[in-house]
């Protein structure tokens, strides 16, 4: 089968001749079906227009419902009407020419000047109008120049008198070709075509009747519109033949014009939309194309597909990051094609016997369904060239996707693994690029149907090849949450395993040779176990998160500190010498970055798999629990906080007094109100900073009471490891919440001169504007809670609005940029062949592969 390619499509306007030529039948009856549901001849559903009910044959092409593509018909309009969408193109013609002789309203002098602009039809009209503004008489025939106006969308007036389409037609026909040429008209486009004498009737196949069990229940909106047009056209015809008074004819003529206008666009400004009997506005031609639900965006850019499946996702750490667990039902329903060749014929025979083949496509494209009864017979008769439709098996490749698909790693290739139960199973490490979680998210799989698409996915789309983000060149598929805290526990100096445990752990990652025990009494350190999954040639060092914390507390970190707190990650020849596995491993230049950048792409996937095995073994052995006790505020801290809050209230009262007396020294560039707000916020944030420093010190000392990291403060442990929670969260629980901010500042007044009706009128005190002195452990007072909720609500609104705003930004960006493609010489060209960049990004490097995203053609400090 050869595939034909569309090389180009030409747009244009249909001339009346063409409309008549391509028409299968002239429609004259405003009727659809007769009593038996058979299309009425010359009616709006005439059989010449194609067939939409089974059993009938098209009278134009003779095909049945399946093969008939549908054909156009036409309506001969009794009186011409304006094409509503092109009146603005007719308007300048009328403004620029003489009504009597059809010549341009120019004297010779101006005409010569005009020729210079003959390539810009838009400018010409403007120029001629400017030139002829002062003219009272036509320079050519001396007739009076009439002032033409357009009452949108379709009505023209000359000197206040109505110009009917037939008048305009006469006028336009008088204009000479050379003048029309100036306005952009040619032999291919005549202005008289915009005045409709004949209207094409679209095939029935694009406006099918809705029928339930052969009883026609509803007609398409276009059919309704066409019915109206034919009905009015006929009535106009009868009235004219009967010699009805002019006013009736004009009324009907206007009605015809109205129906034609709404038939093209039922949302035309200045025209009431045509309504269905039920009062719903009809969907006419323009509405079918327009907007998000229109033909372009709904059907042409987004297309519905086969071979897809959707289900809730849930996590599984027992599969690799590039694997995907799918339910048996999905694997058995979706199929892959496999062509029988001499290499796989025996395998396919096996599949047939195992009921893995659903059906075969024989050489003459016939379907043979495989059943338990005939499978032996089919297997025996199997020969090369037959296509087998196989159920999915472990190891097949699928595409996995989650909406919103904001970047390319929202769609990636996975190897499937058939698992019990009915959800898709995803390794939680691979959640980040999809932005997925397991609170009920649903995702899709798509099964590639050709060898080339499978190959494309394998080579370009697999998860392993997308560890590094194209956006910033840093890892995005990284360990999170439990893996971090587990790895943190595993690599602590104090973590030790017995020989039995070490054997279990190493066996689970495929190591069968036990290394030398490195601790006393035959114990194995966590660091040693962790080193087993590192490549043997790795040398790497960086600062752990704890390093930064100690730096913050003590000002600088000495060698002794590094030794004591074990906060400098150092790997020599694949052996972890000091430091721990924490959140920092996922930053750029650090462990994950190096492993994914400098080792083969499947190495990182294996590393993650092994890491999970070790980590979850560690976690289940050592445990990780949080006690409520950790969140109790110690008494001395409590008194200190109370003391500080008291001080804060006094200082802020001073600020308030100064503000009310207008003696507050202004911050340069700010007025009194702004200064006051800033002072109040900075005063309260100073207190919070102080208290959080105190809490950090307290908790730090608690953690390192006897040289080893203690297990009795898990909250801090997960914060220090970087798996979840920041110091701020701890402060909010055991310290205080502090000032509530709404967007950028304190909450604004909700009532006249006060935030809440419970405030005393006109006060500006700290507590009245949302300072929360309680913490989450103690709970807030009702008023604090209320003001705190104001902040929460604002945040919720902002997320809602910002998704909308950024969604539209993204749509515009992608529409503008999608045609830019890198050429063979690394230049970037647009679809029109314009060079946008001579070398992509000025150095030709790919963003994910460029070191730290730097440009190598320029020197960086």
């Amino acid at each position: 089968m050869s595939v034909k390619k569309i090389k180009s499509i030409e747009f244009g306007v249909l001339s009346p001749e063409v409309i008549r030529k391509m028409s299968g039948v002239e429609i004259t009856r405003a009727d659809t079906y007769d009593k038996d549901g058979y299309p009425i001849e010359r009616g709006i559903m005439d059989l010449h227009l194609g067939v939409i009910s089974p059993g009938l044959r098209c009278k134009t092409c003779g095909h049945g419902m399946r093969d008939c593509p549908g054909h156009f018909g036409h309506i001969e309009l009794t009186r011409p009407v304006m094409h509503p969408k092109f009146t603005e193109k007719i308007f300048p013609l009328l403004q620029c020419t003489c009504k009597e002789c059809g010549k341009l309203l120019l004297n010779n002098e101006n005409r010569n000047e005009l020729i210079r602009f003959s390539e810009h039809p838009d400018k010409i009209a403007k120029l001629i109008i400017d030139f002829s503004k002062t003219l009272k008489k036509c320079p050519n025939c001396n007739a009076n120049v009439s002032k033409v106006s357009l009452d949108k969308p379709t009505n023209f007036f000359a000197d206040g008198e109505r110009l009917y389409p037939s008048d305009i037609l006469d006028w336009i026909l008088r204009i000479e070709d050379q003048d029309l040429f100036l306005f952009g008209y040619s032999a291919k486009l005549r202005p008289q075509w915009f005045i409709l004498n004949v209207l094409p009737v679209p095939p029935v196949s694009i406006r099918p009747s809705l029928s339930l069990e052969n009883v026609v229940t509803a007609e398409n909106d276009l059919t309704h519109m066409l019915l109206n047009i034919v009905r009015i056209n006929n009535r106009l015809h009868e009235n004219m033949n009967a010699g009805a008074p002019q006013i009736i004819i004009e009324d009907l003529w206007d009605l015809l014009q109205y129906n034609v206008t709404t038939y093209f666009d039922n949302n035309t400004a200045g025209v009431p939309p045509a309504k269905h009997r039920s009062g719903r506005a009809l969907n006419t031609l323009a509405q079918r194309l327009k907007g998000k639900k229109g033909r372009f965006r709904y059907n042409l850019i987004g297309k519905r597909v086969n071979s897809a499946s959707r289900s809730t996702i849930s996590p599984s750490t027992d599969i690799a990051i590039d694997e995907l667990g799918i339910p048996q039902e999905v694997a058995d329903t979706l199929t892959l094609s496999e062509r029988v060749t001499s290499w796989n014929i025996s395998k396919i025979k096996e599949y047939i016997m195992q009921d893995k083949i659903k059906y075969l496509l024989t050489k003459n494209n016939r379907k043979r369904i495989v059943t338990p009864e005939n499978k032996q017979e089919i297997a025996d008769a199997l020969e090369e060239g037959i296509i087998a439709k196989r159920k999915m098996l472990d190891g097949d490749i699928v595409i996995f996707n989650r909406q919103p698909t904001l970047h390319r790693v929202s769609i990636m290739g996975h190897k499937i693994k058939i698992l019990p139960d009915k959800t898709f199973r995803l390794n939680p490490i691979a959640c980040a690029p999809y932005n997925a979680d397991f609170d009920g998210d649903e995702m899709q799989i798509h099964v590639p149907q050709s060898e080339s698409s499978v190959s494309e996915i394998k080579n370009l789309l697999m998860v392993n090849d997308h560890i590094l983000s194209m956006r910033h060149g840093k890892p995005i598929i990284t360990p999170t949450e439990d893996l971090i805290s587990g790895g943190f526990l595993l690599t602590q100096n104090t973590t030790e395993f017995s020989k039995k445990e070490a054997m279990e752990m190493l066996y689970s990652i495929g190591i069968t040779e036990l290394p030398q025990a490195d601790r006393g009494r035959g114990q194995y350190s966590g660091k040693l176990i962790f080193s087993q999954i590192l490549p043997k040639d790795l040398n790497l060092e960086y600062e752990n998160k704890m390093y930064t914390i100690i730096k913050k507390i003590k000002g600088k970190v000495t060698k002794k500190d590094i030794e004591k707190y074990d906060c400098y990650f150092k790997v020599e020849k694949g052996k972890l010498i000091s430091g721990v596995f924490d959140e920092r491993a996922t930053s750029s230049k650090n462990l994950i970055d190096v492993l994914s950048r400098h080792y083969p792409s499947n190495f990182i996937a294996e590393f993650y798999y092994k890491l999970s095995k070790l980590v979850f073994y560690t976690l289940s052995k050592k445990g990780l629990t949080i006690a409520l006790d950790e969140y109790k505020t110690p008494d001395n801290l409590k008194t200190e906080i109370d003391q500080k809050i008291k001080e804060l209230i006094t200082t802020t009262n001073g600020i308030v007094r100064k503000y009310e007396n207008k003696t507050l020294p202004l911050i340069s560039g700010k007025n009194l109100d702004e200064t006051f707000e800033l002072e109040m916020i900075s005063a309260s944030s100073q207190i919070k900073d102080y208290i959080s420093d105190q809490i950090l010190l307290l908790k730090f000392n608690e953690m390192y009471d006897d040289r080893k990291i203690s297990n009795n403060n898990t909250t801090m442990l997960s914060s220090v490891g970087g798996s979840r929670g920041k110091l701020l969260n701890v402060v909010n629980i055991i310290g205080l919440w502090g000032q509530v901010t709404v967007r950028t500042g304190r909450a604004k007044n909700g009532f006249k001169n006060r935030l809440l009706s419970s405030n005393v009128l006109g006060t500006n005190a700290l507590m009245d504007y949302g300072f929360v002195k309680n913490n989450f452990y103690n709970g807030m007072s009702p008023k604090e809670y209320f003001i705190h909720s104001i902040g929460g609500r604002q945040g919720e609104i902002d997320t809602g609005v910002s998704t909308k705003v950024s969604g539209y930004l993204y749509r515009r960006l992608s529409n503008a940029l999608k045609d830019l493609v890198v050429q063979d010489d690394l230049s970037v060209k647009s679809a029109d062949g314009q060079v946008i960049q001579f070398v992509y990004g000025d150095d030709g490097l790919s963003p994910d592969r460029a070191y730290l995203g730097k440009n190598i053609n320029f020197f960086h400090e």
Partner: protein
Amino acid sequence: MRELPKNILERIENYSNKKSFSDAKKKRLIDIVTKRYNESLVTPGDAIGLIAAQSIGEPGTQLTLRTKHYAGSLEVSVGQGIQRVIEIVDGRLSSKYPSMKIYLKKDVFATEKKLNKFAKSLIDIKVSTIGDFQEDFENRTVSFILNHDKLDELDLDKEETMTLIYDKINDTYVSKRFTPNKNGINFTFDKTTPLFNIRKALLKWNKIPLFGVKNLELTVITEEAGEKVISTKGSNLSEVLKIPEVDTDRTYTNDILEINKVFGIEAARASIIKELKFTFESNGIEINQRHLSILADLMCFNGKVKGVVRTGITGEKTSPFARASFEETVKHILSAAFDGERENFKGIIENLIVGQPILAGTGRVKLTLDPKNLKKMIKKQEGLEEN
């Protein structure tokens, strides 16, 4: 294999000289670097435009919403979040929150006081800034009343200001002007002047500029790496650059259209990248420079700043399908019909619409395997091996 860029070769040269590598070792180093360089190059056929759009659009939800900050000593002009990104990308005619950073030549101001005075002298002061007019319609007189507080705030000399106002306000209707006194100036109009004209004159007078640079509403002195810098609200690059004390090399405005007007399109392109980068970075979002540069280049490549809007880049595409599928579908189809346009299926979306392979990535490769030739080749190969 592409050869290494010159400056990388230079760096290798320097490095091996420093470490005194042998020629063979140096060659090996160059080979390794060349291999890595070629591995790091972008793949021909990559739809990097779409990747750039995704990289800029995807973190959009993380940007803050509606936060306007201004030059002040506490926060020095913080990036503004998604509204600012949209403003830059739209290529709008004027920035909503224009701001300048005026750097000064070394040691032009000996004391802080002089600097302060200079900063204040830049502020755009109109008649309406420093006083109000009071109308007396019955007698057809208008008195200008000076706001002394404002004068003090702006460090203006009273007498000088009053004479300036007195000189500048000179309307044909005014029959008598009184010399400035302590509090203001009185104007008397002809008795026959229509009231409407009096009000019209006042509105005009209010806008008369007196001191400073047009559009600079506020100036604040901030410190940047030990240097005093004047930050402003409002921007007027061309005028500020004319001031002799100003360091013209470093003075900067965040108004891209103004940069385009003063320095041309290359500067505008650079400032689009700079401003986008600044906005994203101040929201803690990292985006590779390459994505921003491809966007900036597309916006600027034909000499004027075009926005990523329906009238800008997308609206000027030659393909009717590409335009119709974005916005204003009906309008674009009608204009394509009127102009007799031709759809050539050179872009991505056009081919997608008709269900053809797109001209990017694997769809762009025209090589196919000819099975007949393959068989021949295999035979040839086998023959060679036998011999």
